[in-house]
């Protein structure tokens, strides 16, 4: 089995499933193995895909209500009593509303609190800016002891859910609402702290995380037609980041584009910039939200409007190569 689905070049034949769905499936799998896994939900059971867990393990499902601050602190209290908890809500509210509780009760206390922020990015669509969380990667990345994981499709979301339950300490998992192409396979490796090279190339490296990674692959295909071979790296483990793979790509490609459906300030691209500014400076262009909020619309319209699609990644690649 390849690390990319056999039909990955044809978007229309790929299954489209949201990453939150993959999370829901992973949750049931890990809960079957680990009796200490509890799920806490802040009134969004169905839309965060915790429903499957609730049905399978009603005794370990805890409804908190619209109380995101205590969602985290109650979860941490359960961890103090020996449990591993998944906190399920929208990213705008958790970690958006409960950052201090995450800092104090999860991170400082090093508890097994897994914060699952669904509905991240402008791809949330019609709900508008209030519900399109674009600052979460930045918020979570600065916290000591925190692990930050951003799955690119439903299959990876399942792997990430299982890996995060096994990882000691707090983890943030970023999920999307919209159905996106499933282009990785069961055989695609995932490990916390490891980046995956999905496509080889030495002219430019495109480093992405989340479903936008599919756009990165599409962009690389187009660039190839123009004689530019782009390396595409899945940087799902934003923290801890696979520094060796990122530095190697800078050394071998000499120019980098980062891509995420999140604010460029403090996001995954920022993390790459911080690393390379110290370790191996090369020109970098960042695709992401440019210090503005989203708005209502459908996901496709919004991704295009905020320049988060393949054509914009191609432009960024061409621009950054010129800066070499």
């Amino acid at each position, binding site marked *: 089995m390849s690390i990319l689905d056999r039909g990955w070049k044809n978007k229309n034949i790929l299954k489209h499933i949201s990453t939150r769905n993959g999370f829901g499936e992973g949750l049931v799998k890990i809960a079957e193995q680990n009796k200490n896994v*509890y799920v806490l939900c802040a009134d969004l059971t169905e839309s965060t895909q915790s429903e499957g867990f609730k049905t399978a393990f009603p*005794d370990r499902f*805890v409804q*908190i*209500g619209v*109380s995101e*601050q*205590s969602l*985290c*602190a*109650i*979860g*941490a*209290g*359960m*961890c*103090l*009593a*020996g*449990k591993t908890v998944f906190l399920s809500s929208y990213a705008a509210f958790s970690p958006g509303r409960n950052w*201090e*509780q995450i800092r*104090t*009760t999860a991170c*400082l*206390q*090093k508890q097994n609190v897994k914060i699952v922020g669904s509905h991240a990015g402008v791809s949330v669509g019609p709900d508008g800016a209030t519900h399109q969380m674009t600052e979460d990667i930045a918020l979570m990345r600065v916290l000591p002891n925190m692990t930050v994981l951003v799955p690119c499709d439903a299959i990876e979301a399942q792997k990430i859910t299982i890996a995060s339950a096994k990882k000691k300490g707090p983890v943030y998992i970023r999920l999307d609402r919209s159905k996106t192409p499933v282009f990785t396979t069961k055989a695609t490796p995932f490990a916390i702290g490891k980046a995956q090279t999905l496509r080889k190339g030495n002219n430019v490296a495109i480093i992405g995380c989340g479903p936008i990674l599919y756009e990165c692959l599409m962009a690389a295909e187009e660039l190839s037609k123009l004689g530019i071979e782009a390396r595409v790296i899945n940087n799902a483990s934003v923290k801890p980041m696979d520094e060796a793979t990122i530095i190697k790509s800078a050394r071998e490609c000499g120019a980098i584009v980062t891509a995420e459906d999140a604010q460029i300030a403090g996001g995954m691209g920022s993390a790459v910039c911080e690393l390379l500014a110290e370790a191996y400076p090369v020109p970098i262009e960042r695709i992401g939200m440019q210090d503005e909020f989203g708005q209502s619309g459908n996901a496709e319209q919004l991704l295009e409007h905020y320049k988060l699609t393949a054509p914009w990644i191609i432009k960024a690649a061409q621009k950054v190569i010129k800066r070499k």
Partner: protein
Amino acid sequence: MPPVRDIKLLTEKKLLVLENKAQEIRADILKMLEHAGSGHSAGSLGMADVFTALYYHVLVHDPKHPNDKNRDRLILSCGHIAPVHYTTLAHAGYFPKTELQTLRKFGSRLQGHPELGKLPGIENTSGPLGDGSSQAVGMAYVAKQEKLPFHTYCIMSDGELQAGITWEAALFAGRNVLHNMTWIVDRNNIQIDGYTEDIMPIEPLVQKFEAFNFHVIEVDGHNIREIVEACAYAQSIFEQPTVIIAHTTPGKGVDFMEFEPIWHGKTPKDKAELNRALKALRTLNNKITTEGN
């Protein structure tokens, strides 16, 4: 249903021992705070009787085995009164009393606000107000769900009842009937900026907790017998979680600190002021005239 833990009757003889112990703890609090140069005096002194009652009579615990899985859990939500917690733990035998002098110093296990994992007997990291009550309900929920025998206590300040998260936790506790948990509110009426009822009133407190489905008991927070009996009574309530509102005197035992909000976050400034405070303690605020300097 988790098993009930009997809290033994408090004999007159033991009561006297505990009252003396509370005074010893107050003296050590003053000494450690003067040495540290910063910290919270009023709340720490005010809660010495409650902490003494808990660690010397109420809690099922063993300082030699601080991680025993069946120990009662004491979550301190208002981490700024760490001095009374640290001092009581040291007196109870969790760590050497000499270490009290390292409070707030570089490399000390006695952090300015308590940190989980640093010191035996500390069950949670606290300081940001309001987070403790939620953690206590999380622990109590697991204990109830899995029929674990321990009782969870949460000590909180009255000021942190202004934090929304406290009431989120209260909703959860009421809905899930966490009778295996007791909250103790230090009702001393002061907070950093002044008196609670001037800053942001929290009264009527009894009715508020009752409306959140708590069983409410009010006690004199300096009457160790009342504190013990309220804790024992709380064990017999199975229909609701219990909150004990302990009416305390901030700065208790030191006349020039009592009821003065300024002492909420201040320490004796030098040895002379410390000695004045210790003398006030020794003489019960100069009521004992035979006691000299």
